[in-house]
């Protein structure tokens, strides 16, 4: 690969996966077949206000991860997606917070950016 786009994808890897001087963070991704991969990417888990339309808010969380598509495919995984079918296993993502507490999530939706080779997965709570 050559050109600016390939360079941007390479830079993306440098930004996403720098766990020494950057915000790179270990993330485990498991596909519905049970294949897991240990990746490095960005993870977010912050508070969010949920508006259930009653006029009164519910405090919640917003969690997401951003990983490099190339490293997913290198590990035998495709791009994660939300699985609505209850007869299938969902894509599962797990990572620790900065205090060392483990959290497991189901991929609710994914937003792949195939131009840059990045996928952002929006997560919901999951009991494995």
């Amino acid at each position, binding site marked *: 690969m050559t050109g600016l786009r390939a360079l941007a994808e390479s830079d993306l890897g440098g930004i996403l996966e720098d766990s020494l001087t950057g915000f790179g963070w270990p993330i485990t991704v498991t596909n519905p077949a049970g294949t897991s991969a240990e990746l490095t990417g960005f993870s977010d888990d912050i508070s969010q206000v949920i508006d259930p339309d009653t006029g009164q808010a519910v405090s919640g969380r917003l969690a997401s991860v951003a990983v490099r598509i190339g490293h997913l495919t290198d590990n035998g995984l495709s791009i994660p997606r939300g699985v609505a079918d209850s007869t299938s296993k*969902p894509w599962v993502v797990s990572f620790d917070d900065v205090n060392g507490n483990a959290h497991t999530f189901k991929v609710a939706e994914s937003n792949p950016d195939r131009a840059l080779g990045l996928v952002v997965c929006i997560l919901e709570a999951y009991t494995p």
Partner: protein
Amino acid sequence: MTLELIDKEDTFEVVRDQIGAILATESANQRSLATAAGKDPELWKLRVYLERANPWEAFRDMVDTSPIVNVWFDAASYPMGHGNTVERQKSEARYNIDVYAYGQSADDGATGHIPGDEAAARSLARAIRLARNILMAAENTYLQLPRGTVWRRWPQSISTFQPQLGEQPVENIIAGRITLEVQFSEFSPQVEGDEIELISIDVNRARDGMLVAEADYEFPL
């Protein structure tokens, strides 16, 4: 000037508190009955609150995921054709019984999973079902208040709200609302009239003067 200190609760307050009390006590009773029937009592649990306005944070740590019920007074109207201008007016009051339900995706122990959005919707339906059945149970026809307080209670509507569009939160939370109309009388301070005259009536038989009947009437009545 009204000489009487207005130190009472209006009926719309009494009814609101009573709706909450009935839901709380009946939910606890249903849990006992479920335990006796060998079923999971948590499925009959409602966490009942009155007039709460702070954001709900109970679901965030997922410690207790049973549905939350918030009872609040919405509005009342007073049709002029019922009651009188002096003492009593009929009130048609609307109470919102808001239900918040939580659902979490989970492994089903087999080859699939339990979707959290569907679990939240089913939990909401179960809580609405429980609340409606409690409030419309025969025992609560008059909301267990002294007879004559409540004329009628009636579920005006049940609605559920769509999950929030946009960013998917970690928690699957969905809300619904039972709008309950309750009709009752509202009373107001009254003037205590002073006795200004006593009318006494004696009825005597003319033939022998025997007292047949007597009556005393205070005026005003």
